[in-house]
Structure formats: C-alpha cells, structure tokens
C-alpha cells in the first residue's frame, strides 16, 4: 500500500542525525588552523570560544525559538566563577571549566522559571534585564570581581599536569578545541534526543506541545540549564586562556555579538554558531587592523547587507552549495 517501508522510516530518522560535510569540514579546518596560522593562535582560540557561546544560544533560539538579549549573563558568570576559583588558589583547568558551567547552569535553571512564563518580545526584555543586573552587580563589587579593572591574578596549573599554558597559546588552543568539540557532541546528542525533538516542537508550535502531554515549562527549564551551562563553560575557557576576566564578558555588546554570529552562521544548524563566530571575529580583527578608527563602519555595512540578503546565514548558503554539488556529481 505505501511505498515507505519501516526500514526506510528508520533510516530517515538515523539520517537526520548524521554529520553533514559542513560540520566535518569546520572541525578539520579549525584543527588545520593551528598549523597554518601559528601567530594567530589566540585569535583562533577566541573564535572557538565565541563559537561555543553562540552555539549555546542556538539551542535556545535556533531550536527552541527562545530569543535572548542577555545570554552574556551566563557566559560572564562562568568566566568569573572559573576566574575566582583560579585566583583563589585552585588553578586546575578542567575542574575550573566544570565549576564555571555549574555556576552558570544554576543561574539558567533559576531564571528559566521566570523566562518560561513570558512570551514574544517580552522574553528579549526580561533576558536583557537579567544581563544588565549581573553586569551592574559585578561592577559594583570591585572587592570580589575587580570591578572595571577586571579580575586579576588568575594563574592556571598545567593542563592534566603536563601542558603549560604558555605565552604562545598552544596549550590554550587545543584545550579550547577539545572542550568545544566535546560540548558540540553533547549538544548534537541533545538536539537529536526526544528532549531535543520536544524543544523543536516548542519552536514550531508552542501551544500545541501541551496537547501532546508534554510540559513546555519543563522542556524550557532543561533547555535553559543546558544552554547556560555550555555558555558558562565557554566563559570559563576565556577566563582561563586569557588569565583575566573583564566586565565586558557580561555586557550587552557580547550578547548582541552572539546573536550576530548565530544569524551570520545560520540559526538552528548548531555548526552555524561556530562558522558565524569564526567569520565575525575574523572580519572584526581584519577590519580593525586595516583601519583602527573606522572599522565599525564597514562591520555595520556588512551586517546590514547580510540581513537584507542571506536570511539562512552562511550554513544555509553552504548547504545549498553542497547540495547543488552533490546533485551535479550524481544526479538522480
């Protein structure tokens, strides 16, 4: 009766979770970057960290349809948590990253109930206020966070007791690469789990989900906690690899940068956050080196052009390209 058999259905479900060429290409290119641009290791590391942070927002926005204007609150909290741990004598990196993730995840959990109740434009404003609250709190407690001068005195123990965090940023790069890759795998498992499917359901049709017996509040709570934890870990990585934490990690500008990176890369593609981050940070670095005073003008124009044209972001465009190439090579 139907030409779709059970086996085909199963294969289709498996295919949806398969790695695309763009994902594989990105992670290989990132590793190759270490060898190709030895002088730019710190920049590459900050691209990975920016990508991880953008990806954490993609879970909420790309997959759950929950926009956030204050996601830097979690990033900054993770940075300060890991920074304070190291500044007060415990410089072990891995436990520091976990601690940063836990602190931010706790905040995410706490605020998810507040944010779950709010819908539409109000979510942007509530998350904006959360971000500003944390920024203000950190700036008003110089005795703890170092205030505007930033948190100093972070000295990191060697990674796994072997690899020193040196000036050239070699260890820092592979450390950030490994943590980012592991969290990417975890995020992939999450969006391809039933929990991830429920989150997509919320994005597609928020009011229909309860009619399937699924509690939207619980799904948002889980999504927020995971997203905040990953953002916190990204912040912790920045604190550990730059050995300083600035108020800027909690700033509105960093939340907006995450939104830009995600939209440039491509929403709801997971790898989009990383590709968007790499492109945005690279462009900002090149433009500001070329013209230190007026680079924001060109960045603004690029952003405007992107918003008027490529709605699917780079991944959208790249997917079209790879599909086109695939069809060219062996047309069905």
């Amino acid at each position, binding site marked *: 009766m139907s030409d779709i058999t059970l086996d085909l259905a199963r294969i289709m479900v498996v295919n949806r979770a398969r790695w695309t060429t763009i994902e594989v290409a990105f992670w290989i290119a990132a590793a190759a970057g270490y060898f190709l641009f030895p002088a730019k290791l710190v920049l590459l590391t900050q691209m990975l960290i920016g990508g991880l942070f953008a990806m954490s927002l993609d879970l909420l926005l790309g997959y759950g349809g929950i926009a956030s204007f204050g996601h830097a609150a979690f990033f900054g909290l993770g940075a300060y948590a890991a920074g304070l741990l190291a500044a007060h004598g415990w410089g072990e990196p891995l436990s520091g990253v976990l601690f940063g993730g836990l602190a931010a995840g706790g905040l995410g959990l706490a605020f998810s109930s507040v944010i779950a109740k709010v819908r539409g434009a109000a979510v942007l404003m509530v998350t904006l206020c959360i971000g500003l609250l944390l920024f203000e709190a950190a700036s008003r407690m110089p005795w703890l966070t170092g205030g505007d001068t930033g948190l100093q005195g972070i000295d990191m123990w060697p990674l796994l007791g072997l690899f020193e965090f040196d000036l050239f940023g070699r260890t820092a790069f592979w450390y950030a690469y490994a943590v980012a890759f592991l969290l990417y795998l975890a995020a992939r498992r999450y969006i391809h789990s039933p929990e991830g499917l429920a989150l997509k359901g919320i994005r597609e049709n928020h009011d229909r989900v309860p009619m399937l017996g699924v509690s939207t509040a619980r799904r948002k709570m*889980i999504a927020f906690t995971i997203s905040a934890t990953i953002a916190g870990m990204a912040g912790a990585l920045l604190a550990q690899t730059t050995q300083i934490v600035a108020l800027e990690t909690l700033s509105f500008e960093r939340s907006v940068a995450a939104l830009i990176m995600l939209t440039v890369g491509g929403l709801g593609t997971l790898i989009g956050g990383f590709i968007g981050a790499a492109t945005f940070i690279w462009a900002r670095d090149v433009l500001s080196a070329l013209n230190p005073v007026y680079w924001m003008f060109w960045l603004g124009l690029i952003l405007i052009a992107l918003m008027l044209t490529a709605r699917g972001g780079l991944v959208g465009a790249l997917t079209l390209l790879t599909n086109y190439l695939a069809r060219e090579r062996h047309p069905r």
Partner: protein
Amino acid sequence: MTAPALETKALCKQFGALKVTNEVSLRLKAGGRQALIGPNGAGKSTLINLLTGVLAPSSGSILLEGAPINRLTTDQRVALGLGRTFQINALFPHLSPLESIMLAVARRNGRLGRPLQALHRETDTTDEAFALACSVGLGRDCLRPTAELAYGRQRLLEIALALAGRPRVLLLDEPAAGVPASESFELMQAIEALPRDVAILFIEHDMDLVFRFAETITVLVAGTVLCEGTPGEIAGDSEVRRVYLGVAGG
C-alpha cells in the same frame, strides 16, 4: 457500574456578565460515542477549552474516569488520557508527520527528560510512530514536512497525534471541517477505525457524520444543554428543530 469516562458537574464559565458556559453537566460513558451539536456561538469551543484546561472554569468540576482534573495543567490532563484534535490544523510545519507522532509516543513511553539519549537508537519509538501513521493512512507521506501535506491529510495527522497518547477520552473538534468530499472518505474510515474502548465526544456540523457515528447527541444552545438523547429522539424533537434548524413546528 464503572465511572463515566468523562463527566462535568454544573460547569460554568463567565467573562464578566456574559455566561458562556452555563451549568453544563455532561456524562460520557466509557467507550461511548457522543456528539455535541449546536449553532455557532453556542459555547462548544469554550467547553472544549475548559475540558482541556486551556481555560479555567468559573465554577463546577470536571472528572476524568471519576478523578477531578480541575487543578491539572493541560499536559497533565493529556498524560492522564484526555486527547483532542484541533478545528484549525495546529501542527508542526517543518517537522515530518513521523517526527510529530514520535514526540507524542516518546512522551508516553517516558523517554523525555534524558537529553543525551539518542532518538534513533530507540527504534521502538520509530516503529510505533510509523505503525500509527500507517493506521490512519499517512504511511505514504509521513517523512515529508507537514506543511507540504494536503489539508485533508493534515486532519489525519491530528487524529494520529491524539491517538499517540493512547487517550481514554478523545475530543474531536469538527474533524471533517473544510475537508473536500474527495478526501473525506479516508477521514471517515480513520474515525470508524477508532478503538472501541476510547470514549469519543465530537463537535460537528456535518449531520451525516453525526447521525452515522453518534450513539447519543447533546444539543448545546447559548452555553446551556437544551436536551440530550439518541439520534432518533433528537431528530424528532421539535424544540431542537426550531432552535437549530430554524424550521417552524413539527
């Protein structure tokens, strides 16, 4: 005597002075087939929203298999066995029918809450969802995005999604509304094939469907139950004819 599948006691809903649901007491027996008819604006949709918890009642109680569910949220009521379909398709445009059904199945199998559990490793969820899709005749296009499906076939997905929760009570909100004659045959078959142990309350204007499936019919007018009886009684009742069909006398 087993408790009725669904029962309401003096259920009321007021918006300010306007009494939209007025002392409605319904009894839907287990496995029953009951139709709810009434002119537009009689308060049918409000009643369904009260039953599913989208709206909170002003007074009165709702019991599912004898247990009060007034305090429960919509998803808790559905988990206890109350399913419904929507008059205007409310589905997941970019998800495929298979994925939509898998979500409902996964919830029922308790597979949610474990973010690192890969979906494709649990073949039982896929299998059950696929079987359900085929049972309502959606096997053919259960992998295409739902938005690309024809309107009639989306109605079938509504029913499959409701069934995926293995409901004890199923509320069908105008299942045949807007379905062209060419596609209504499959829909009739799907409704006919609904399991006998599930109690069904359906709102419908299509009198053929009502008189074909309903064992009892309740007539709702201006938020109040006018009368209730077998199709034969209702067809002959002059009061119903006057109010509903607008025709004078017997």
